[in-house]
């Protein structure tokens, strides 16, 4: 246990408490074993109009504090073997090279990584440089997830993104030269976008030859600038029917070009599915560090405080950064597992599911399953239960019934 004792945070001048810190018992973070690690890097150069993530816009003065906070969280985390690591954000590529190196080293110091460990780092196209890629590669990073969003200049503008199309192409080339797996994030249904434009955009993306795509329909969430623009009538959402067509077009075109659809928003060349993200959908356990990051151990899920400064104050003051904590009941866990499993196109195998969760989906939600099967929203395919395409399109209207069914 000695390795897990909190360090003395007094060295920190910005955020530390004065005087000695009394070690806390129990530890500030839930404890559990996991073979996956997520690290949240909150920095962004500006906040995009549709973004409600935990981000820190502005100066990088907080970098040293953040490095120390991750190190502190590491001390509160059980060491072990990792098969996947994911640096997300925010924008991890905004970290300076020294700060990134310190973080990469921290992961190696605290954990053992299996040789074939999948290690993803998210990046903004304009941040990708050969030196940066070299640093990541040296430390075992295998995969770059590029926030490309679109290959059309007006659309990038409509999306309130700061990078140029050329940045994307250059970054793609550099990543591929570095021999790293490439994933691109794409957005459809930007304000004013037509179906033809989306098809054009999609074909640019296909031409990159990236191994993996994450494709998101733009959603306007509470607390974003787009939300208030829409409320004031200054921003029009793409009509639902067009959104549906764009989504279906995505499914068709990417499948035709050789990318398998494996989760609601994710597509991969065979063998390139994101192993880390699959752990979320397979209800596995994962460690997490950084503001707003969520960890999960056997039904205990904790989310760190999303405000970067609050997170730092707490961690560096020796206090728990946990903002929300929940202990899921067995019933909630298995229903959640069913929903997450059905978000993957592989769906759920009833016996495999029952082996882990003590009941088949049919036993868990007989009435709802029967209704959805009859309505053609769910189907049996090679012994597995999965969404039909129509079901996929309206899946959010299905989950509630599976999460809570009376009898």
């Amino acid at each position, binding site marked *: 246990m000695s390795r897990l004792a909190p360090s003395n945070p007094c060295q920190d001048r910005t955020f530390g408490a004065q005087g000695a810190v009394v070690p806390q018992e129990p530890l500030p973070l839930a404890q559990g074993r996991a073979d996956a690690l997520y690290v949240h890097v909150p920095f962004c150069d500006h906040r995009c109009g549709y973004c409600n993530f935990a981000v820190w816009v502005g100066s990088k003065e907080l970098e040293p504090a953040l490095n120390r906070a991750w190190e502190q969280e590491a001390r509160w985390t059980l060491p072990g073997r990792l098969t996947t690591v994911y640096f997300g954000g925010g924008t991890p590529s905004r970290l300076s090279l020294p700060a990134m190196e310190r973080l990469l080293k921290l992961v190696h110091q605290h954990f053992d990584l299996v040789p074939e460990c999948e290690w993803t780092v998210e990046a903004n196209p304009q941040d990708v440089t050969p030196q940066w890629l070299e640093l990541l590669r040296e430390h075992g990073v295998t995969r770059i997830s590029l926030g490309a969003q679109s290959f059309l200049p007006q659309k990038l503008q409509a999306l309130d993104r700061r990078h140029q199309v050329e940045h994307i192409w250059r970054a793609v080339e550099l990543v591929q030269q570095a021999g790293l797996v490439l994933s691109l994030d794409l957005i459809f249904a930007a304000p004013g976008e037509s179906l033809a434009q989306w098809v054009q955009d999609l074909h640019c993306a296909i031409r990159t030859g990236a191994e993996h795509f994450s494709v998101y329909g733009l*959603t306007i969430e509470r607390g974003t600038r787009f939300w208030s623009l829409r409320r004031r009538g200054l921003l029009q959402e793409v009509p639902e029917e067009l959104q549906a067509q764009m989504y279906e077009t995505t499914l068709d075109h990417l499948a035709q070009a050789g990318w398998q659809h494996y989760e609601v928003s994710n597509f991969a060349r065979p063998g390139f599915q994101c192993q880390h993200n699959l752990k979320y959908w397979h209800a596995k356990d994962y460690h997490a560090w950084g503001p707003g990051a*969520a960890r999960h151990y056997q039904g205990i899920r904790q989310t760190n405080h999303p405000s970067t400064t609050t997170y730092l104050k707490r961690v560096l003051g020796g206090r728990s950064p946990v903002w929300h904590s929940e202990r899921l009941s067995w019933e909630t866990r298995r229903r959640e597992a069913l929903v997450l499993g059905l978000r993957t196109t592989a769906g759920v195998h009833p016996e495999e599911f029952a082996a882990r969760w003590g009941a088949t989906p049919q036993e868990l939600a007989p009435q709802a399953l029967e209704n959805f099967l009859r309505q053609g929203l769910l189907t049996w395919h090679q012994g597995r239960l999965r969404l039909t395409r129509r079901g996929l399109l309206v899946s959010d*209207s299905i989950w509630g019934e599976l999460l809570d069914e009376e009898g």
Partner: protein
Amino acid sequence: MSQPIELIRNFCIIAHVDHGKSTLADRILLATGAISEREFREQFLDDLELERQRGITIKARAVTLHWDYQGQRYELNLIDTPGHVDFHYEVSRSLACCEGALLLVDAFQGVEAQTVANTYAALEQDLTIIPVINKIDLKHARVEEVLQEVEQSLGLDPSEAILCSAKTGQGVSEVLQAVVERIPPPQGDPQAALQAMIFDSHYDTYRGAITYVRVVNGRIRRRQRVRLLKAGTVHEVQELGCFTPAPTPKEELHAGQVGYLICNIKSLSEVHIGDTVSTADAGPELALPGYQPPKRMVYCGLYPADGEDYQELRDALERLSINDPSFEFVPETSDALGFGFRCGFLGLLHMEIIQQRLEQEAQLDLVQTAPTVTYEVLTRDGRVHRITNPQQMPDPGQIQEVRQPMVRVSFVLPAEYIGPIMKLCTQRRGRFVRTEYLSPTRAIVVVDMPLAEVIYDLYDRLKSITHGYGTMDYELLGYEPADLVKLDILVGGKRVDALSVICHREDAYRRGKAIVGKLKQEIDRHLFDVVIQAAIGSRVIARETIPAIRKNVTAKCYGGDITRKRKLWAKQREGKKRMKSIGQVDIPQRAFLAVLDAGAQKRK
């Protein structure tokens, strides 16, 4: 020591709402020393919170006052009458206890619909009417014009009017003087057989029924055994007396006097307004004229929003009906709404009052179905059925004739709105009776029309057409045959019983379209198309489709999103649970008011 009958005056105040009835009554209490200055500051006669909020007096009360005038001590009985048309019968019984009425008219508002209706009711009872123009302290008082309106519309002599301000007290002693000088003393023989009329009652948790009476003939003593002729029950008078305004027990009440009786009666349902109290051995020939059983003209279904509150709702309804026998309820079931009650009311306002009390006192969340009037249906077998719920409507094949209640509506409004109101009344199947000018700028329009049209949305339409300046009142005329049909609403092919309405055949298309359109707004989209239809029998006359959800999918669901998303999905499901499911379609509770809203808002 009993009060000589010639020194008694029984009177009431009649007025349109807010013209100052309660304030003047309190002023009179103050002037006669019945209450102190401090007590005056609280409105004394309206004791229910609800009444105060709405500025109307629902329960009639009687106060006995003493006033010394020209060397004589007069007994003044002030009987507070309910002002609203729903309580028309109760008003008529209260008026029957008086010899005179103060007709109170606001010096700014002038004559309004209830002013007219109440004056006619008082004239029908042969009361002496003293016009009183109130609120003359107002800067914008238009006394001359209002006097002219009083003359024009009511045929009263404006030179007899007293000008007063209930607020400042100016003119109040002139009012009292006029009561004594102009209103005749009651007639009646204290030696004759006992006849006392019940004009009101209320329930006291400790004492049981408190019965308000006016002794017409004879006398009534403590410990006497009396018979309620209509109810046919015999009771011993445990206490009697009058309110001054505190209850003051007495040994006897005699002809001409007004007071209360306490007879250990456990339920108000035994105390009928208009019934006669007489001696224990009295026969039916002693019954005073004018008794009528309560006429419930408006019915609606009341259901607990949460089915688990059924018992609570029942208890609450029981409590209310103890205090208000004119309100009635019987259990009813609906496919759509589950277990609830069919409730009968004297009118729309009565319905609203009961509903508000339920919500305030019992804190119950209620689903109310559209109100309907009471129809009479003559079937081919020659029987007449009273229909208080569209569900009870017999098969069209069996129906010989459907009759509906008709009312005479009087509108008082600025003359410029006569045209639009006439147009509205024509649309609502009104038959024009007459127009009278109160003054060059204000008029009374009298129209006969179906009560169903009145309760549908007439009041709201009047208010909106006249920008709030119009008022209305109505009286029941009787039943008339009409071409009425039952309009059914089908959701997803299933008939939703709680949404059926009875309407005129010619209106069915308009109503059906409006309801179906409203439901389309209220019902969320589903995973399949939801068809909403309005039908008469098997013939569909209006139809809307709520298209299925096309796309509803969360793009991102990674580690940090899962909790939030799961809660969101579960919450949506929770919301659905509170809806009523018809087949596979979830119908929110407010949709059941769509039938109302399709016309307009509820009456306010």
